[in-house]
């Protein structure tokens, strides 16, 4: 793939604008709260799009297109079964407690609701995970640009990290959020033409459906048994594992996304943020998954497009970039690559800003230097931006050198995340849940996840204790690990809570359902009612599931 002057010009224009936005927002940062939480002042439409974009990293773009080519439209389950119900739930049912508690972060909510040790567990694991995941995506970007354009790994990693560092350092969370909106527009406008062009070339949806196996164009029809579909999953594992445990665990408890809603300028806006974000989210499969399906159809048409081969099969990971090479001339190629860079940056800035807040407030202020003045914390927050990005760069190189260690770490992070939603669900809706219950539930849930992995195998993975069951795919294994982890955490939290002393109702005000004054639906000048918007979103999502049944 060869870039020309105009492609570089587009990339430079994009860099200039993201830094410019950071520069314009510089004046708004006077306190640590401005830098780390945007002082709860960001308008609704901006928080909604940022809520989406922070999750829309380059790995998601490349990975979802690859999954489209590998699994077909079933990949949309990650959106229409996974993300949408969870986003509606966090907005309608959980945001009143996150926002109403005045907590500055998700770990801080755990401190207020439960106790110090539960916060510490969540803060430390979350901070470690964000640094690693930002480093891993940086590694993926460096590798991608090296493969596609022959750019040096170091140059790609350092350049992209430097741009994110500059605009985040200038305007803090607000700058990251504002830029995420620009990046979201660019991702959509940069990749939508690719989806349209590739599908048209493949003969439209009907033309594609006629060329590839029927299982690739139906999302539910082949779900009766794991062997019937390329994902190797069945309905219960999918709905309970992905649709409930994993998706709710991510969208409802991960501070990276929840932070965007917590920056909104009113309670109503905070609740509406994830709910409004569901509309663009449910349309994203048409931009990120459908081109992958088109790639597979084009591959079978023998018209000059072929997915590269890998290990005797096809290299699905290259679906997106090979399509760009075939459908984008110089000019649009620059836009496509800039969109890829933008998706990477939005994901990375999301990680960096969430890490900043958790490190500064939940770790540094809580355990190292509790009584300092605000100027001190602002300085620490700024230094943390530099420190966090430097750590991410280090992690990117670590991933390059020791790929197996990274796989292992991601597996362990998965174990830690799996039970989280049970803790939050009980914490927010059962006032009897205690700190000891939550902490022991989290530890036991993490242990149950590891144990399930040790006792089962899938595609040669897991079974390091003894294999008592074999799954059709690692995806099915992951869903079931999540189900066992969640159930263990849920049950143990209840048992231990019943045996330990609960907090007084007065200490749980605005933290638990039944002890929180829910705000009136119309608030902050917004006429939209969160519940009405949620019902509309649910109906559209249901219709999409039926449309591709």
């Amino acid at each position, binding site marked *: 793939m060869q870039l020309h002057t105009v492609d570089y*010009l587009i990339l430079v224009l994009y860099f200039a604008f993201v830094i410019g936005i950071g520069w314009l927002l510089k004046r708004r940062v006077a306190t640590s709260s401005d830098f780390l939480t945007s002082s709860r002042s960001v308008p609704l439409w901006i928080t909604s799009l940022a809520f989406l974009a922070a999750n829309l990293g380059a790995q998601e773009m490349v990975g979802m297109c690859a999954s489209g080519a590998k699994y077909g439209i079933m990949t949309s389950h990650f959106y229409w079964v996974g993300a949408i119900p969870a986003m509606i739930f966090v907005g309608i049912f959980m945001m009143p407690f996150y926002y109403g508690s005045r907590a500055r972060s998700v770990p801080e909510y755990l401190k207020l609701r439960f106790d110090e040790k539960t916060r510490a567990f969540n803060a430390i694991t979350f901070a470690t995970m964000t640094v690693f995941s930002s480093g891993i995506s940086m590694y993926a970007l460096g590798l991608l640009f090296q493969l596609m354009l022959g750019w040096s790994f170091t140059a790609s990693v350092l350049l992209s990290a430097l741009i994110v560092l500059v605009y985040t350092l200038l305007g803090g969370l607000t700058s990251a959020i504002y830029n995420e*909106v620009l990046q979201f527009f660019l991702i959509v406008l940069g990749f939508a033409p690719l989806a349209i062009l590739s599908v048209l070339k493949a003969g439209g949806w009907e033309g594609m459906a006629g060329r590839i196996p029927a299982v690739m164009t139906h999302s539910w029809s082949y779900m009766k048994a794991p062997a019937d579909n390329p994902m190797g999953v069945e309905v219960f594992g999918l709905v309970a594992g992905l649709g409930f445990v994993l998706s709710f665990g991510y969208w409802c408890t991960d501070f990276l996304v929840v932070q965007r809603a917590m920056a909104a300028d009113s309670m109503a806006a905070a609740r509406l943020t994830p709910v409004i974000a569901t509309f663009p989210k449910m349309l994203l499969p048409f931009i990120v998954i459908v081109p992958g399906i088109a790639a597979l159809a084009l591959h079978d048409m023998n018209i000059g*497009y072929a997915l590269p081969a890998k290990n005797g099969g096809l290299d699905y990971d290259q679906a997106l970039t090979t399509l760009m090479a075939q*459908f984008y001339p110089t000019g*649009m190629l620059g836009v496509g690559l800039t969109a890829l860079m933008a998706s990477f940056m939005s994901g990375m800035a999301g990680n960096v800003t969430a890490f900043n807040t958790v490190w500064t407030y939940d770790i540094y202020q809580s355990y190292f230097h509790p009584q300092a003045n605000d100027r001190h914390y602002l300085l620490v927050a700024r230094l943390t931006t530099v420190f966090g990005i430097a750590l991410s760069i280090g992690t990117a190189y670590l991933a390059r050198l020791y790929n197996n260690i990274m796989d292992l770490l991601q597996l362990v992070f998965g174990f830690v995340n799996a039970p989280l939603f049970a803790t939050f669900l009980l914490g927010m809706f059962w006032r009897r849940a205690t700190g000891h219950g939550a902490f022991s539930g989290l530890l036991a849930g993490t242990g149950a996840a590891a144990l399930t992995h040790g006792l089962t195998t899938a595609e040669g993975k897991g079974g390091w204790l003894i294999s008592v069951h074999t799954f059709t795919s690692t995806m099915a294994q992951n869903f079931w690990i999540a189900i066992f982890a969640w159930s263990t955490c849920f049950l143990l939290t209840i048992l231990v809570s019943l045996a330990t002393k609960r907090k007084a109702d007065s200490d749980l005000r605005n933290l638990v359902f039944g002890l929180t004054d829910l705000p009136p639906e119309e608030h902050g000048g917004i006429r939209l009612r969160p519940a009405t918007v949620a019902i509309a979103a649910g109906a559209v999502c249901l219709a999409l599931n039926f449309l591709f049944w």
Partner: protein
Amino acid sequence: MWDLRTPSGMFFALLGLILVMTGLLHPTARAPLLDFNVNIYAGAAMFLFGGCLLWLSKRRS
């Protein structure tokens, strides 16, 4: 507080302009699997999108 639609609108209007100019100056530049000038169409769409954002921000102010 300034409106984010202003810089975003300027960015997409400029990007659209660059693409349209590229399409006009290099009318024969084609991607391997395409037989039409995608830069002009995509550029025009981006220019329009940028224009809409600028119009919305101007209307607000």
